[in-house]
């Protein structure tokens, strides 16, 4: 029956299938393989699954030493109490080199960094990876730090990696000390863009957080002799920097850590080291008065990384790199989310299963 169906109908049918089925069906026949590998089909499959922003957080990927990946299904996690981690097997020729850290996740692609600080993009669902060339734009300093971000520029239908190279040896706030470069997947090359007007030096360089086509970092802003904490945003379409106010920026004592996105809102973790910690959510993007605080009375965490928001308004956090915590701000309750078969320590990030290939030229 299916041999006779026109190609557009085959695209319609196959684009409704999950990735595991599609990976298997690549070996049904040559026509099926070429259809499933076709950029147009991959885009159709992606669009069918990204009508809802929530899908970007469908699964968790856990990276542990030595370059070991586990995947956890997060679908409707608020209604389940059993979670199991799947170990991702890589054949020897697919295995990415020694990956150390996850720096970004979008449309099923992960931005990773290896031991030699080389970037590569990995699709953990199809196991395809691509090593990126080195950016030649970095500050000339022994105390050089890099922050990265990964996102998608819808105006050009292109994936972009942003690298902010900055140095900070005297711990003085100095905005001029950074060089920003952008990598386009379509051209496979880096180019320098305008410097960031903010001071990106942090104790621990953090990844850019993607929301509404812009990457966000927690930075310091200097006006005259005053310094304040701001969230820097880089618009991926026009590649200019803007700022988003931090919560309580009038009160300088707040230490903002771990920026994240949950339910389409910016979210920060503010440790208070007194048996409880604060989480602030910016309900309306860019509106300083919409920052809303809730307090978590679970235990002292070194840090909490916001991961996802359930339909019942429960927040999922990764806590201190070794457990997951589910917090309900309305009932002021927190509990640990137990996942079977996970490693002791890991780096966790949300992702979705797609066929998007890091080696694929974009189709426009």
């Amino acid at each position, binding site marked *: *029956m299916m*041999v006779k169906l026109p190609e557009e109908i085959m695209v319609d049918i196959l684009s409704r299938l999950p990735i595991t089925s599609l990976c298997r069906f690549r070996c*049904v026949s040559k026509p099926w393989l070429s259809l499933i590998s076709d950029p147009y089909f991959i885009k159709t499959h992606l669009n069918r699954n990204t009508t809802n922003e929530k899908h970007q957080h469908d699964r968790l990927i856990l990276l542990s030493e030595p370059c070991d990946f586990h995947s956890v299904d997060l679908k409707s996690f608020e209604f389940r109490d059993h979670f199991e981690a799947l170990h991702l097997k890589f054949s020897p020729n697919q295995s990415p080199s020694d990956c150390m850290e996850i720096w970004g996740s979008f449309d099923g692609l992960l931005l990773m960094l290896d031991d030699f600080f080389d970037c590569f993009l990995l699709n953990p669902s199809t196991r395809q990876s691509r090593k990126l060339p080195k950016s030649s734009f970095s500050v000339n300093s022994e105390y050089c730090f890099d922050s990265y971000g990964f996102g998608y520029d819808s105006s050009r239908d292109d994936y972009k990696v942003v690298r902010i190279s900055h140095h900070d040896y005297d711990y003085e706030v100095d905005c001029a000390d950074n060089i920003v470069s952008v990598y386009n997947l379509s051209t496979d090359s880096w180019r320098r863009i305008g410097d960031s007007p903010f001071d990106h030096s942090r104790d621990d360089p953090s990844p850019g957080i993607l929301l509404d086509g812009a990457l966000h970092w927690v930075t310091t802003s200097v006006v005259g002799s005053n310094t304040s904490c701001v969230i820097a945003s880089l618009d991926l379409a026009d590649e200019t920097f803007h700022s988003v106010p931090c919560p309580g920026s009038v009160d300088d004592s707040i230490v903002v850590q771990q920026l994240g996105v949950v339910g389409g809102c910016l979210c920060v973790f503010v440790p208070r080291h007194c048996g409880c910690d604060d989480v602030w959510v910016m309900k309306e993007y860019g509106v300083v008065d919409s920052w809303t605080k809730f307090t978590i009375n679970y235990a002292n965490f070194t840090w909490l990384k916001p991961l996802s928001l359930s339909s019942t308004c429960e927040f999922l956090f990764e806590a201190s790199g070794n457990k997951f915590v589910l917090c309900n701000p309305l009932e002021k309750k927190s509990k640990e989310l137990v996942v079977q078969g996970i490693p002791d320590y890991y780096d966790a990030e949300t992702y979705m299963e797609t066929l998007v290939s890091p080696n694929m030229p974009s189709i426009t």
Partner: protein
Amino acid sequence: MSSSLEKNMLILRSSDGEEFIVPEVVAVMSKAIKNMVEDECASNTIPVPNVDANILAMVIEFCKKHDESEAEAASDLKTFDSEFVNRGQEALYDLITAANFRDVKELLDALCQNVAEMIKGKSVHHIRIQFLGYQLFEILTSNFIWNIWCDRDFD
């Protein structure tokens, strides 16, 4: 003939010559027929080539149900859809072709979803034999190791 027809009714003629009197609102769920009606080139009987009476009756049944049940609960319609599309491969193929050719979006959507559910969990061998009409000997004589590799789990 059209003079004796009630207002807002259309006649559809299948490829094998059978005629169906259908309310216009139901008939125009097919985009192709809707375009014909809007262009006013559908004064008399509308021929529906490539679709036989048997399949045309099924398509009309589906469209009628979807037209009537606008006010009904979505779950009832879902049940109807899943029962409607639960057919043998030959009928499914004919229905998909008709829905595609006549541009009936809801029907095509339900049919494609059904085929996707049918093949989702199947092995590569099942797909080849049941849906692509491969003969058993073709599979047995092809590379044995390759076949095992094909059916491994990708999780």
